């Protein structure tokens, strides 16, 4: 029995190896010529635009479906399916003129498609998952004719031009509305869309294949297709880029990014991104849900002088240079500088710089005097000791925490960091069970959602931040929401940012850059967002993928694959060896049995 088993196993192994060896020669090129292959590490939750929320999935949806308006390379709202629009004097009624364009199956795109999509999200609970929040303020959406769409909002809504809602073809989706929340949108290919690319293939957990949309209204993209290839770790993705298995990799570590320098076929892109990293300070305000107190934040942090003192103790430039290795810039606002219309930089007199002496003075003023051992003791006689919650998911957090401990120690404040899984850390933050915590968000082109998150109503919810609550801020928030005149709205947003900064709602530390690299021997012409020094991937637009241009002469399309031949030869040798082995053994066994 053992011999049979063993022989079977060996045979099986030989088969696999033979298959593997031969496979090198049988490998097909990706379909349709010059296909941009992008390594992605995040999972695809769904490609159904009513359901998809993960960054990678919404990126694919952006390529498949146009919006009414879209964020341009400069992050301002640009015409997309709507070629023009107008707000009525009541500030509630918006009229959009829909462009003459076709779906990828040749049928015309009309205002009815837009109305269908929006009304589904507004009325069908199953369709609300991804974009329900974006239509909450809509009273009605109607198509008065094929080219005219009228949206009436409940309250004036300045952010309406940044409502990122993928518009689906009614003639495809109308028959599916009863299953709209559970469709995968990969049931039949090609998936009819209006974006620069059309979805033509999907392998769960492995790849997404899109082909250029010939009837795209801006004109067919220059690349023949885009393929997202799933890599479970960026180490392997970087190796894949070196080898040429993929053309573009995003979100590498600084070490990986540096290791790609000097490769003549690879161009690196250090893109200014739309994220910020912050140090939360627990305000210990009551819950925005039921008004009850929650959490166990240190009451010392209720004093603005203490919060300012802590800010003065932090050397943000050291964070940029020594922890982020220069791939970052100091931050002041929860609206990143890639949005120049809405970001904020404090005036010289307002800005708080690294200044331990000033920090000590502020603590003295607040009644936290230094004891004989240099430790600060509060008016209640207790030493000023704070806890820092940090998630282990961000590799640099440990180092950052170490620096914080040192800086706070200098001013006599004891800091005790704890490291937790991101879920545990998030649980602590939502429940208010922290003094200080590292956090961060990605910000959309319209500042409204990020600003909204700092209002009192968000406290103790799953999206709460510092637990900030200032009635003056909430008043300004409502005012900017209703202000349709952009310069006036900018002025209000500036006041809000300034208020957040003076109140030290949190310490915004850095805006980290996104590290990307691509095979410039295969593709070029990527348009970044923002256009100067921005990112190729992870945009709130499709500019990077849409403008990718294949390099004219390609050495690596078609033809023989020498590696495959080598593999086949090796495989063949192994198989021959195993066959010989079995033949010899077989003879010996039979002679044994004859004994």
């Amino acid at each position, binding site marked *: *029995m*053992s*011999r049979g088993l*063993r022989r079977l*196993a*060996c045979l*099986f192994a030989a088969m*696999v190896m033979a*298959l*593997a060896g*031969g*496979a*090198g020669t*049988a*490998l*097909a090129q*990706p*379909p349709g010529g010059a296909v941009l*292959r992008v390594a992605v590490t995040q999972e695809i*939750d*769904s490609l159904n635009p009513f359901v998809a*929320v993960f*960054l990678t999935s919404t990126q694919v949806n952006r390529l498949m479906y146009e919006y009414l308006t879209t964020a341009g390379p400069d992050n301002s709202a640009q015409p997309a399916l709507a070629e023009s629009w107008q707000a009525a004097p009541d500030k509630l009624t918006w009229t959009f003129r829909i462009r003459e364009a076709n779906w990828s199956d040749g049928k015309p795109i009309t205002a009815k498609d837009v109305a269908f999509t929006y009304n589904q999200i507004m009325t069908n609970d199953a369709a*609300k998952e991804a974009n*329900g*929040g*974006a239509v909450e303020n809509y009273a009605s959406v109607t198509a008065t004719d094929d080219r005219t769409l009228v949206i009436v909002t409940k309250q004036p809504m300045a952010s309406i031009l940044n409502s990122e809602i993928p518009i689906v073809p009614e003639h495809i989706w109308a028959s599916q509305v009863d299953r709209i*929340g*559970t469709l995968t949108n990969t049931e039949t290919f090609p998936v009819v869309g209006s974006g620069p690319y059309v979805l033509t*293939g999907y*392998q*769960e957990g492995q*790849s997404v294949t899109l082909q250029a949309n010939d009837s795209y209204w801006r004109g067919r993209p220059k690349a023949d297709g885009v393929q997202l*290839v*799933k890599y*479970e*770790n960026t180490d*392997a*993705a970087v*190796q894949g880029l*070196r*080898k040429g298995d993929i053309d573009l990799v995003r979100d590498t570590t600084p070490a990986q990014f540096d290791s790609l320098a000097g490769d003549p076929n690879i161009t690196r892109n250090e893109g200014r991104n739309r994220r910020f990293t912050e140090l939360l300070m627990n305000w210990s305000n009551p819950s925005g849900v039921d008004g009850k107190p929650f959490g166990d934040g240190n009451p010392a942090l209720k004093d603005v002088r203490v919060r300012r003192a802590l800010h003065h103790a932090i050397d943000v430039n050291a964070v940029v240079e020594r922890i982020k290795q220069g791939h970052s810039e100091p931050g002041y606002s929860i609206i990143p500088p890639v949005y120049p219309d809405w970001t904020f930089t404090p005036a010289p007199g307002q800005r708080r710089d690294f200044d331990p002496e000033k920090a000590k003075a502020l603590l003295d003023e607040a009644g936290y005097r230094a004891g004989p051992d240099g430790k600060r003791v509060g008016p209640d006689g207790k030493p000023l000791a704070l806890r820092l919650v940090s998630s282990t998911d961000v590799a640099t957090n440990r180092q950052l925490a170490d620096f914080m401990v040192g800086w706070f120690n200098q001013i006599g404040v004891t800091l005790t960091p704890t490291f*937790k*899984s991101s*879920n*545990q850390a*998030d*649980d602590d933050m939502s429940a208010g069970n922290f003094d200080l915590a590292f956090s961060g968000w990605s910000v*959309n082109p319209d500042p409204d*959602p990020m600003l*909204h998150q700092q209002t009192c*109503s968000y406290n103790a*919810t*799953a*999206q709460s931040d510092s637990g900030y609550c200032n009635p003056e801020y909430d008043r300004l928030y409502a005012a900017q929401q209703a202000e349709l005149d952009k310069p006036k709205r900018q002025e209000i947003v500036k006041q809000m940012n300034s208020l957040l900064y003076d109140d030290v709602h949190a310490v915004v530390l850095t805006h980290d850059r996104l590290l990307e690299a691509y095979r410039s021997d295969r593709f070029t012409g990527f348009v970044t967002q923002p256009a100067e020094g921005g990112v190729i991937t992870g945009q709130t637009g499709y500019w990077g993928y849409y403008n990718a241009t294949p390099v004219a002469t390609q050495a690596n399309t078609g033809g023989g694959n020498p*590696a495959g031949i080598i*593999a086949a030869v090796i495989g063949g040798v192994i198989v021959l060896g195993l066959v010989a082995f079995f033949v010899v053994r077989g003879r*010996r066994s039979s002679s*044994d049995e004859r*004994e």
Partner: protein
Amino acid sequence: MTDLLPSTTTATDLAEPTKGRAQGGLAFVLRTIGGGLISMALIVVLGFFMFRVLPGDPVRAMTRDRPGNPEQLARLRAEFGLDQPLPQQFLDYLGDLARGDLGTSYKYSQPVTDLILGRLWPTVLLTGTALVISVALGLWLGSRAAWRHGSAFDRFTTATALVLWSVPTFWLGLIVLMVFAVALDLFPTAGMTSPGGVDGFFPAVLDVAHHLVLPCLTMVAVVYAQYLMVMRSSLLEEMTADYLTTARAKGLREDLVRRRHAVPNALLPTITIIFLQVGFVVSGAVTVETVFSWPGLGLLTYQALAVPDIPLLQGTLIALSSAVVIMNVAADLVYRLVDPRVRTR
């Protein structure tokens, strides 16, 4: 199997003395299967409560980094059924399970059953192939090493196996990837197929096999040592047995003494290990799947933990543990078949 001789060494005795062989056999089978069913029931209950104790809020995970507001969060909570009291959630869970419905994943908005089935084949392919190869390699090398214990061959194979066993899988995988995929350019760097797949049945099979080599190689390198060591030690125990002297006295060649007399007896403890490992085949190898981006079930489970995607976790727990339970039951039953001492008593 005819030349199997009873030995005085340590085979685990699973059967009890009973009135009749057939009757005892049936009772034993029923008892074993019953035990398996009780284990499954406990797992079903445990799965429900265990994943609800996990830190993390699925609603927050599904709205992170996106515009949302408290009303939307509440709606999502209701959609997931998380606004219901825990006993009600438990009853719903049991009811769905009784109807064979493992629920809908929070993250993928897809039936959990579909997700698990989609990942089952890649997992079984990778871990199954690796298991077969490592068992074959381990048993072969282990029996040779024991037969000539103390020799240079023994020292070399044992040391190599132990070194590979101790190497961190992630590190070894990346080295293998850099050498065979990048430097030598022999194999692809990720996935189970070429992106988008390949047309035609035979090319598709070759494509999968081509992608399978490196992850399989890594897994085999890491795990074959356990079979080698078990085989080696159990054969060593047999080495001094009298029946081998008898066999030699009959004039049998050394090779034949080993293969037909010593190894079959030494194989018994190894079979137990193999069966237990087969149970773990479906849970796959998260590390290898991560390095080579292989779309396996282990990876699906691991990623579901980050949300936490409770229905998916419950489903994978049930799928993975039923495999282990079934293989345990099978091991008990098969052991009875292969070990005459258990059968005849």
